[in-house]
């Protein structure tokens, strides 16, 4: 379980677990600063997925033979690890999906669209959501005639929680919020927001894609009804995501996919669904992905999520100071690293974010540029694009320093 943050991370030794850092990019050592988009994978995770295919590949839950039992044991074992990692009450509250996006769509469809929402009901989101926590609710609005409302963002990147005084009413049925912004890094007070939702009988849906990989998350203390995240941003494989839901809320949610695995019995013209969580896992699941995610969870647990968080706060603070000291660099989001995730968005006076990224690429440095799938937030700040560096367990202060050196080259080119 959680271990003391007494020792910060030993990055050189962690880095050795990630085969990708053995390669060079454009004859330079790889400086990977795009973990908010996807994380790199340790050998343990890569081996676990190939081990499944190489040693005990079989479909889960139905096979009578030994291989099938091993596969089922490992797949369900991964569900238990994920449940423990986010402090769910039971593994049955963990649904495997393909991504955060699918998890959020499952909620929008199964609880919203097919659920009990009526015309005139209200869904409260925020301006700082990723597109994957906007568009599914647009679907619900278009089909159910519900009203969408949004909490705003301050100039410094703080969520305007005071907006909820007006926004959350008796008509509110769903409150949805990102735990940590993928652009600003802002960590939102999801406990408080959940409480506000529950006061009017609404459910709270948390997009945790940028939080679960980077900090301790306890779904019981947040008390949210749904929480979504992805495996690939937390050292796990792509194509595996998680939807946590409280048991009773999952019971009241309709499945997105009909087919094998998710049924109890099927007759011509009718079917009865399987129990939670299996009724949401129609079709052969991403078995290797789930097993790999389980191993990623082991890896993170071993490091200690308190230590992971402390490490990222330190790196972020260093980055804010060093980048902030550069001429013509503008930083977005809160100045206090302890209130934000390991994501630093910035712009430069003369260079467009795409040009910044292209020049850094020549130096072997990977950063993101663009709207980061958060166009409403970019519009709020009247920005066509930003550059974004994001950190994880394999990054150290030297990576930040290489970024700063790279940005000086950008300045030279566009001087």
């Amino acid at each position, binding site marked *: 379980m959680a271990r003391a943050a007494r020792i910060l991370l030993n990055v050189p030794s962690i880095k050795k677990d990630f085969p990708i850092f053995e390669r060079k990019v454009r004859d330079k050592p790889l400086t990977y600063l795009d973990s908010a988009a996807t994380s790199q994978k340790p050998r343990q995770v890569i081996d676990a997925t190939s081990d499944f295919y190489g040693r005990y590949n079989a479909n889960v839950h139905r096979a009578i033979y030994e291989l099938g039992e091993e596969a089922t044991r490992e797949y369900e074992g991964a569900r238990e690890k994920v449940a423990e990692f986010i402090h769910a009450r039971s593994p049955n509250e963990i649904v495997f999906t393909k991504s955060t996006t699918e998890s959020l769509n499952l909620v929008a469809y199964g609880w919203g669209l097919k659920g009990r929402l009526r015309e005139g009901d209200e869904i409260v989101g925020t301006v700082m959501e990723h597109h994957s926590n906007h568009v599914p609710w647009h679907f619900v609005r278009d089909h159910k005639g519900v009203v969408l409302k949004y909490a705003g963002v301050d100039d410094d990147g703080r969520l305007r929680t005071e907006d909820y005084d007006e926004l959350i009413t008796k008509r509110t049925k769903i409150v949805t919020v990102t735990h940590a912004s993928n652009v600003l890094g802002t960590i939102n007070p999801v406990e408080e927001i959940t409480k506000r939702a529950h006061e009017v009988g609404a459910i709270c849906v948390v997009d945790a894609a940028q939080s679960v990989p980077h900090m301790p998350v306890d779904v019981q203390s947040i008390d949210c009804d749904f929480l979504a995240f992805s495996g690939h941003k937390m050292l796990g494989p792509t194509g595996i995501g998680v939807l946590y839901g409280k048991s009773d809320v999952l019971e009241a949610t309709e499945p997105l996919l009909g087919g094998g695995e998710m049924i109890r019995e099927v007759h011509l013209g009718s079917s009865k669904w399987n129990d939670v969580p299996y009724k949401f896992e129609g079709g052969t699941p991403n078995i290797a992905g789930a097993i790999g995610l389980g191993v990623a969870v082991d890896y993170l647990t071993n490091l200690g999520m308190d230590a992971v968080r402390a490490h990222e706060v330190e790196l972020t603070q260093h980055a804010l100071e060093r980048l902030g000291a550069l001429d013509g660099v503008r930083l977005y989001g809160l100045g206090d690293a302890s209130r934000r995730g390991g994501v630093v968005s910035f712009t430069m006076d003369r*260079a467009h974010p795409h*040009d910044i990224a*292209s020049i850094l690429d*020549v130096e072997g440095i990977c950063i993101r540029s663009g709207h980061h799938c958060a166009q409403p937030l*970019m519009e709020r700040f009247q920005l*066509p694009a930003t550059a974004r560096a994001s950190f994880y367990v394999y990054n150290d202060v030297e990576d930040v320093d290489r970024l700063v050196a790279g940005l000086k080259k950008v300045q030279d080119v566009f001087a």
Partner: protein
Amino acid sequence: MASAYDMYQEQILDHYKRPRNKGVLEPASHHAKESNPLCGDEISLYLVVDGADRIADVRFDGQGCAISQASASMLTVTVKGKAIREAKALDKEAVLAALGIPLSAVRTKCALLSWHVLRKALGASTKDT
């Protein structure tokens, strides 16, 4: 250094920092606008076509990366004074060749944005040929 920064050659930086034919033309006989939602690049093109179907004047307006803005600037220089027929005949290979820099697939989109706007303004197809 030369190979490392091939994309940002003198010519590109020159057109980016000192864009030619930048601004709005009013009234314009032809006008179109396109954006690249991926990066927020935006280009508007204004043309004044005379009685002889010749592009008498051209301006571009917009914002974006050095590649999209420099290529727009260069394109205006290329088509100014040309017959519409000649401007329509300008294919993407010619535009990329004029830029003379190595471009990844993503950055090629930046480089061709203004060409797409030109095709749109002239009512020509922008399909891959």
